[in-house]
């Protein structure tokens, strides 16, 4: 099971870089994937991206309850 563990949005040289932190099989080795630059996030985009990266159906991507996407300041 591919599980999302975190989303990082970082301001770098005038752009916002989006990275996803993901774990496979609940191991300690988390992986970071650069999703893109200056993109607006939503749940569907993230799941589709991870499904493409790992070559699995979107239903195989696990989304923990504590990860909530909000608009504006967190």
């Amino acid at each position, binding site marked *: 099971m591919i599980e999302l563990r975190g989303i*990082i949005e970082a301001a770098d040289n005038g752009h916002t870089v989006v990275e996803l932190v993901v774990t496979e099989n609940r191991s300690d080795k988390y992986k970071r994937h650069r999703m893109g630059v200056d993109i607006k996030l939503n749940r569907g985009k993230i799941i589709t991206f991870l499904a493409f990266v790992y070559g699995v159906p979107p239903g195989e991507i696990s989304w923990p309850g504590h990860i909530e996407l909000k608009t504006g300041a967190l």
Partner: protein
Amino acid sequence: MASGLPDYYRGVDIAYQALSQMIIRPKYGGAIVSTLQGLCNASGWTDILTVIGKGMIYGGMIYFDHTSTQRDSYPALYIDGSGVLGRTFSVYNKNSIVTPGAHPLWLSKYDDVNFIYVLNFSGGITFETSLLFSFREVHGTAPVFTFTMVYALV
């Protein structure tokens, strides 16, 4: 064991103090490092790092370098949606918030002649859903920042 687990798996009775000691030890090898650089927005907010997830800050720093003062600008740290800190550099300096661990953010350089300001993050700050570090510039200019944070997501 009735649960099906081997007998050596046992729950820890905190009230009974079944453990003689407990050591909480961060696994630094599993840490995430975000190192960023850029310009802050003049007279406005700049969201420097947003992390959505559950985790813990191990440490970090932000360095501001500019050609004019930034003494009244302020960094702000939001944990789980709540703004926990937002003080100006001059307040950090005036109150001598310069000791690691004594405050979530502490000042290690305040040079209002050469306009260099460095703030550091104390380790051990936990977050349950989100972390946002932002900067509010108030002098109408755009300072350069260099930012590093070491943290872990769980």
